[in-house]
């Protein structure tokens, strides 16, 4: 495939098609819509971290005037625990029990029943009237407790090494022979790190509005990272066939992975079905914090050995990740991405999936990879110190390149990791002097990126403009990038291309918006569809001119004779050909469905400066530069935005965000006041350097962008804190009390 580089729209920060709606308040997000006759749904949630449900009596709630329906696990399709039914990476055995507790309630906030009533207040009152007979069981929250031999077991059927266990899975990646590698090492650093559970923190709570007709035809209006995922999961959990479920993607107010599964939709569907009324459900922030997301807390041990000249000879990592109440923590990302930026002959990377009485984890931006990178990149910093090598020089010396066999398996094609390290080294930032109590840290990161199923339609309107329909919710400006791609190919102004997101019954199957796959996949299908449209238009021009279609080319928005031999005809513009369409064979359009292949991994290298207030223990990030190989920045404004947003989230993870559990096994900080995400005054400007090593397997050279920028951040911050204080933190977050404590310990030791 040829990568076109001399473009008019690709590489321009154009105005997004949905922009005006979003700056004027017109855009309709999940909670912004109503239906005639609509009633309100509310979830009753378990107060216990672990309890057997002996019975549920809903009769009093049902008798309350205004209550129209009540549902419990009985109303949700059950998937037996002994047979796995997979939908993508989700196992329906766990999904059916996560949306509604079945045998047991497994975390505080686990739904046990849901009510629909004529007002929110009545629905809430009805929830109070439901009597649940709980047998309260012992529980565990932390990894160390959950893997003790006598730990309370969440799922009796889950065994590990032949015994009932809270370890739900193990994965191992192996390259070479680490024992042999470490035998050759002259310097070895081995450390253990912990991170706390953090939430994706999207500002829009989960919400949906669902109507079910008497004929079973179901309309779902909700915000998610995939309307097709919503349709498929709701279908599986309610028994309504997919052909009867129209899932309409509302504008989505942030997801970061957290909206790749359903919580409310199956419940609202059953409530709507039972009541015969459309049902709206909106989570409170507290429900979001208690019962959705977050990503795993973790304990990781990483050991890296090098020879004195700075060549890394062996690396080993063991990553324990919390899954929450059901199997499925992102051990693949932790074990599989952490060593990937480097060319290391001997690697052993092991991940353990650990159950405990917390809400089931959901994907969060490069799931697992930031956890692994925190450990690996901090160890590399110590290694560089021990070897007396500049930390970026150490990375450069060991950088993976074209032909390197990655620790996670593949042999790399041409990749841009080296370029990111060099750009960081050459940046003005890296050379700038530091002030008092300031320190500088660096770190790198990797994410697989992804392709997969995508569909798109490109239709020429009767007045000669273009409508592109894709199947991916636009979470950060992808419509703008698609408009750039289509306008570029057609040679027309991008404002003539309208890009919309189709619902499940109007566009072909398209997989989730996630894993940094959307622009890679959708630009590929949109390119093919646009090329088909152009071929049709050229054929039609050929017909008018009575020449061979091969003798027509498409340039700058018009069909033109290809060279002097083709004849002399004035160009036929898109508008003229649209006008003539009825006489030339009818409407012009194309529809393409693909399982896209050829996604290439992405690499980033970050430089972070911090300043520590030693009296208050506050670490402030004062300067930050994120460098990333983005393949091709189709819309640079939104590419930079991905980098900046990822860095903001990483700084929160590093310095202030954490789930705090109380002695009753409940989250103590389920709101934005106490779960402290970075606010505007916490952050500096975040500089970005976009390295563009085009992906040769993509028509525009696109690589995924969104995940990588979170991966290096916590390590970059931690390394900067170490550089400032000479003191290393092995546990996140580096919040003021912990920084003060560490400073006091250090002082006492002096």
């Amino acid at each position: 495939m040829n990568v076109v580089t001399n473009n008019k729209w690709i590489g321009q920060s154009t105005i997004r098609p949905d922009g005006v709606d979003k700056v004027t308040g017109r855009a309709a997000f999940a909670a912004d819509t109503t239906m005639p006759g609509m009633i309100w749904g509310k979830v009753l949630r378990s107060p216990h971290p672990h309890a057997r449900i002996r019975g549920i009596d809903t009769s009093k709630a049902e008798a309350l005037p205004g209550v129209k329906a009540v549902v419990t696990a009985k109303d949700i399709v059950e998937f037996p625990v002994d047979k796995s039914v997979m939908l993508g990476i989700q196992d329906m055995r766990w999904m059916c029990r996560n949306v509604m507790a079945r045998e047991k309630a497994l975390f505080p906030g686990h739904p046990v029943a849901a009510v629909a009533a004529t007002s929110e207040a009545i629905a809430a009152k009805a929830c109070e009237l439901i009597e649940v007979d709980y047998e309260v069981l012992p529980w565990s929250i932390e990894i160390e407790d959950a893997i003790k031999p006598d730990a309370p077991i969440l799922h009796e059927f889950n065994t590990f090494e032949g015994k009932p266990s809270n370890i739900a899975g193990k994965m191992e990646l192996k390259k070479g022979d680490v024992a042999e590698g470490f035998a050759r090492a002259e310097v070895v650093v081995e450390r253990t790190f912990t991170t706390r559970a953090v939430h994706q923190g999207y500002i829009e709570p989960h919400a949906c509005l669902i109507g079910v007709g008497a004929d079973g035809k179901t309309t779902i209006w909700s915000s998610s990272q995939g309307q097709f995922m919503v349709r498929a999961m709701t279908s599986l959990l309610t028994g309504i066939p997919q052909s009867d479920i129209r899932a309409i993607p509302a504008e989505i107010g942030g997801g970061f992975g957290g909206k790749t599964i359903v919580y409310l939709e199956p419940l609202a569907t059953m409530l709507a079905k039972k009541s015969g009324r459309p049902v709206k459900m909106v989570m409170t922030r507290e429900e979001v914090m208690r019962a959705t997301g977050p990503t795993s807390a973790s304990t990781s041990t990483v050991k890296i050995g090098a020879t004195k000249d700075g060549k890394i000879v062996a690396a080993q990592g063991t990553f324990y990740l919390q899954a929450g109440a059901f199997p499925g923590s992102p051990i693949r990302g932790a074990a599989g991405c952490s060593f990937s930026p480097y060319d290391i002959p001997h690697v052993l990377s092991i991940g353990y999936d650990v159950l405990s009485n917390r809400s089931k984890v959901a994907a969060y931006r490069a799931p697992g990879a930031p956890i692994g990178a925190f450990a690996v990149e901090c160890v590399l910093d110590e290694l560089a110190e021990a070897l007396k090598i500049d930390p970026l020089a150490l990375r450069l010396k060991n950088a993976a390149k074209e032909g390197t066999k990655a620790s996670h398996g593949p042999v790399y094609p041409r990749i841009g990791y080296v370029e990111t390290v060099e750009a960081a080294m050459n940046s003005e930032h890296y050379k700038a002097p530091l002030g008092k109590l300031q320190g500088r840290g660096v770190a790198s990161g990797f994410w697989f990126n992804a392709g997969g199923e995508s569909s798109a339609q490109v239709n020429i309107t009767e007045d000669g403009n273009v409508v592109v329909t894709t199947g991916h919710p636009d979470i950060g400006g992808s419509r703008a990038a698609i408009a750039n791609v289509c306008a570029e190919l057609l040679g027309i102004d991008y404002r003539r291309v309208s890009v919309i997101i189709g619902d499940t019954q109007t566009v072909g199957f398209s997989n989730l918006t996630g894993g940094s796959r959307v622009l890679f996949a959708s630009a590929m299908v949109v390119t093919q569809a646009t090329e088909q449209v152009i071929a049709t238009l050229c054929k039609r021009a050929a017909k008018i001119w009575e020449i061979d279609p091969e003798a027509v080319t498409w340039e700058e928005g018009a069909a033109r004779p290809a060279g002097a031999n083709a004849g002399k005809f004035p160009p036929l513009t898109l508008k003229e050909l649209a006008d003539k369409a009825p006489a030339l064979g009818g409407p012009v359009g194309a529809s393409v469905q693909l399982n896209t292949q050829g996604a290439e991994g992405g690499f980033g290298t970050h430089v972070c400066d911090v300043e520590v207030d030693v009296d208050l223990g506050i670490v402030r990030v004062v300067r930050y530069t994120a460098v990333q190989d983005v393949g091709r920045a189709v819309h640079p404004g939104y590419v930079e935005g991905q980098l900046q947003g990822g860095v903001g989230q990483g700084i929160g993870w590093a310095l202030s965000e954490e789930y705090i559990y109380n002695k009753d096994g409940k989250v103590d900080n389920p709101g934005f006041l106490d779960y402290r995400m970075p606010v505007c005054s916490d952050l500096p400007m975040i500089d970005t350097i976009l390295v563009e090593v085009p992906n040769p397997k993509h028509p525009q050279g696109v690589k995924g962008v969104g995940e990588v920028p979170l991966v290096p951040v916590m390590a970059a911050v931690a390394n900067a804190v170490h550089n400032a204080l000479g003191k290393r933190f092995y546990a996140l977050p580096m919040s003021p009390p912990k920084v003060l404590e560490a400073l006091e310990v250090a002082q006492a030791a002096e």
Partner: protein
Amino acid sequence: MAKLHVSTTINGEPMEFLCEPNDTMLDALRGPLGLTGSKEGCASGDCGACSITVDDQLVCSCLMLAAEADGHELRTIEGMAQGEKLHPLQQKFLEQAALQCGICTSGMLVASDALLRRNPNPTEEEVRFWLAGNLCRCTGYDKIVRAVMETAAEMREAAQ
């Protein structure tokens, strides 16, 4: 309980609505008034997605009772553009890609407008502290702060 009758002015238009005594202004805006541009991110005053102005004071509408609107002048995101003409802040947010998902955008714009009305020449630090009550999880704030500073500079120039 009987509903309360409230007479108020929203975006320059006289408006009347009915509410429960415990409804918040955000409930009223998003419910009976049909102004869903103001968003609910937390309902506890911590995210700013529900920002409006009441008699030119910036408030979180989730922390105000709907009944308190009686006799006051409210402004919401829906009143920011003049017909088809976007406010310079709205235009700049679009040009600078200062929004990603857009859920915080209404509140950010209302809050930024309130800042520029009282301080047409804010420093970066002033912008950052003024907007510290408006959470954005997508952008890292960089492009938002730049958009506000640039709009302020352009509006100062235009006013001369």
